[in-house]
């Protein structure tokens, strides 16, 4: 085997004294060889991003590497002067970031921003720089390179911007490419394209790629070797085939067991009673013309019809811009639909003023995506929980009693009621949000991307919690997600949305096994890690 591009030996990075542990990463060792993708996998706080940023020399000032080596082509990056490390950046070591929407400077054209790297590292003439930039735009398969060259970032989509960032990273033909969750913020179809691009790059550029991710399906899709990190420590590493199919460490096993998968088993038997009937629900936005824009009309939601039976979990799946958010907002009347009916029992929720709906609102409750923004930071959990039932005339004592009971149901301590949101982790907060929604004993619970912001193992717990609550309380759930895998795990039936229309509906098995619509097939085809069946780890020896 050739010499490694990057060889990390005993790397330790200290956290500031206020941190929850002394080290961001401790005694970390791994190698990356040319023409190899090494995936560093872990949940939030595992130290995977810190590792990536240490190699780039872009650590925040508060974090200091205190021991170990990071040998890049034989030189220790940690002992290098800032200037010398800076000279490697972009030239020999390049990086692709998680959030493409903000990764480019809004004030300069794409062409400028790519050419800049040639200005910094070469003596090429203006014409040569432009020619090279054009070639890069071709390589990352952007349509119409001359147009993209002259475009500003805000004129391009997230996927296109990520291609630009990748183009910048490839510009100087680096030997080490670091990618920090580069596809996490992208839709699944775009993700598939970017992942396949990384696979190609590995060979065409003969680079070593350090790919940071939290998603084992992505690992299965592209990795050659895997490093699993937990709380700053490597718990397991090895060839991808080995780690994914025969994980040794309990934490790896736990993570792999948490990978969302379609359940096997017979089609669910559903109650005949209909909990929610949506008929011809429709929403069109009329965007008024501004000083510089022409007025336009956006059909965010074409007439939609569906029914949800009591005790059913209906998944509504779609990528960004598919209309699922508009649908949800109309359902709970945060938006007024243009037309159509929403029958909950005998009541049409689409009719009447928002005020007149107040009493009916307790029938349909929602849990939002962001568990951090959904709770008031200045009030205790208990106060926030009892508010809703008290609005509907429940006495304070009764409401408190209910809050205590719900804390048990969402598996939190009763003391949690007396604490503030900042004292909880994301997963705990999402459970509190679920408890809050359940406080008014709704008939229907909408989970709007409710697990999307959570780590896989936490996501698994919350999904399990939802399933248990549904079973125990006879709840009907609308589960909104962009992730088919998660939908498949928890839902009975699925609706696939695209461009404001319902393009596919059926049981999970139907949709996965025999998709009718071209878009559904495309979506299924784009799911990462399809070649990998997560092993059944129950009962295997530890």
């Amino acid at each position, binding site marked *: 085997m050739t010499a490694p591009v990057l060889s990390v030996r005993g790397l330790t990075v200290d956290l500031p004294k206020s941190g929850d542990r002394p080290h961001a990463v401790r005694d970390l060792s791994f190698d990356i060889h040319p023409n190899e993708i090494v995936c560093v996998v872990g949940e939030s706080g595992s130290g995977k991003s810190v590792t990536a940023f240490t190699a*780039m020399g*872009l650590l925040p000032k508060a974090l200091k590497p205190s021991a170990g080596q990071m040998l890049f082509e034989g030189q220790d990056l940690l002992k290098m002067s800032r200037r010398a490390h*800076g*000279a*490697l*950046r*972009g*030239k020999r070591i*390049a*990086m692709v*970031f998680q*959030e493409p929407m*903000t*990764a*480019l*400077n*809004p*004030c*300069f*054209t794409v062409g400028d921003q790519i050419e*800049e*790297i040639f200005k*910094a*590292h070469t003596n090429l003439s203006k014409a040569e720089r432009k020619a090279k930039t054009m070639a890069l735009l071709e390589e990352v398969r952007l349509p119409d390179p001359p147009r993209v060259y002259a475009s*500003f970032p*805000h*004129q391009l989509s997230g996927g296109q911007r990520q291609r630009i*960032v990748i183009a*910048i*990273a490839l510009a100087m033909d680096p030997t080490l490419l670091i990618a920090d969750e580069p596809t996490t913020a992208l839709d699944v179809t775009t993700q598939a394209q970017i992942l396949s691009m990384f696979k190609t790059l590995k060979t065409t550029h003969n680079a070593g790629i350090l790919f940071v991710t939290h998603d084992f399906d992505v690992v299965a899709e592209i990795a050659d070797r895997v490093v699993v990190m937990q709380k700053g420590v490597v718990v397991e590493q090895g060839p991808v085939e080995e780690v994914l199919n025969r994980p040794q460490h309990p934490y790896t096993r736990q993570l792999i067991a948490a990978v969302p998968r379609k359940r096997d088993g017979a089609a669910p038997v559903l109650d005949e009673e209909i909990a929610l009937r949506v008929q011809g629900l429709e929403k069109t936005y009329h965007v008024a013309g501004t*000083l*510089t*824009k022409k007025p336009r009309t956006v059909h965010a939601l074409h007439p939609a019809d569906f029914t949800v039976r009591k005790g059913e979990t209906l998944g509504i799946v779609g990528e960004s811009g598919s209309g699922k958010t508009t649908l949800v907002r109309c359902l709970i009347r945060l938006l007024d639909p243009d037309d159509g009916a929403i029958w909950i029992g005998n009541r049409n929720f689409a009719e009447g003023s928002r005020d007149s709906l107040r009493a009916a609102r307790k029938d349909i409750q929602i849990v939002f995506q962001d568990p951090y923004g959904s709770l008031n930071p200045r009030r205790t959990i208990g106060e926030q929980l009892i508010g809703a039932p008290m609005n509907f005339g429940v006495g304070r004592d009764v409401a408190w009693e209910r809050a205590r009971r719900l804390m048990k149901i969402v598996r939190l301590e009763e003391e949690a009621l007396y604490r503030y949101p900042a004292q909880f982790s994301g997963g705990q907060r999402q459970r509190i949000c679920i408890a809050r929604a359940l406080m008014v004993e709704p008939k229907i619970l909408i989970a709007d991307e409710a697990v999307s912001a959570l780590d896989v193992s936490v996501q698994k717990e919350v999904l399990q919690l939802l399933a248990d609550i549904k079973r125990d309380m006879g709840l009907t759930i609308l589960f909104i997600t962009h992730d088919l895998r998660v939908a498949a795990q928890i839902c009975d039936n699925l609706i696939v949305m695209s461009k404001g229309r319902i393009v596919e509906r059926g049981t999970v098995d139907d949709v996965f096994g025999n998709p009718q619509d071209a878009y559904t097939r495309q979506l299924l085809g784009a799911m990462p890690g399809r070649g990998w069946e997560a092993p059944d780890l129950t009962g295997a020896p530890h």
Partner: protein
Amino acid sequence: MLRYLMQRIGLAALVCVAVSLLAFTLLNASGDVAIAVAGEEATAAQIDAIREDLGLNRPLPVRYVEWLGQAVQGDFGDSLFFRQPVAELIAHRLPNTLTLAVMSLAVMLALSVPLGVAAALWPNTLIDRAAMLVAVMGQAMPNFWFALILIVVFSLTLGIAPPSGSATLGHFVLPAIALGYYSTPPMMRLIRQGMIEAMSSDYIRTARAKGIPTWKIVFKHALRNAVIPVVSLSAVQFGNMLGGSVVIETVFGIQGLGFLAWESISRMDLPVVQAVLLIVAIFYVVMVLLADFINAWLDPRIRIQ
């Protein structure tokens, strides 16, 4: 882009008309010019005669249209006190005020940009605190007092700058420092905030990852983004310097617009006050317009939808 420009210009023109209307009606409602002109000893008949003479007995809308019609052609009537055309008075004073405003703006930017950038690059350090101290002092000191200190130190003690008058550009140095320093603090804070935000943004991280030298990251990538709100505030500050420099003009004996307006208000010299108001307002609107255009040029998100 062209449409954007045209719409902005149209809007600006509308604002100017509205200001003129407001100025004209409010000033005429604020007191009787005829009484002021006639003096305290005048009889009712004399006052009526003056009213007749000045055309003050005609309806307000008629007078407004007439005044505006003439003003558009550069004729603001005659001053009631100086007995000479207002246009001449203003033509004489405006250059002084403009020179002072432009130089003050330069002083303000020369102080606030480096201070703001330095404070942002080393936030919560001694540098940041020192920059903030300089700024807060500027805000806390009454500007006439600071102006007096400048005169004492630089004119009387060191003798390197003239204490008053407006004969040469040199005469404007001390007033510009006094006026510019006073407007520095809000600007400095804005730049500091903008730079801190810009420096912690993702695109700066991308620029670092590209291996761009630090000075270029700061002055090209970050400052370009941080400076956008600064342009708008500069326009507003410039307007304030035009209209609000009375105190400084008085201390340094500069015959400027602010001073003229103040004098004329106390004399109920309405034609002058109206004209000064309109001209300051037009400058203000033009500056804001200019700021919009500069911002559109700086920020492609405004320019290209």
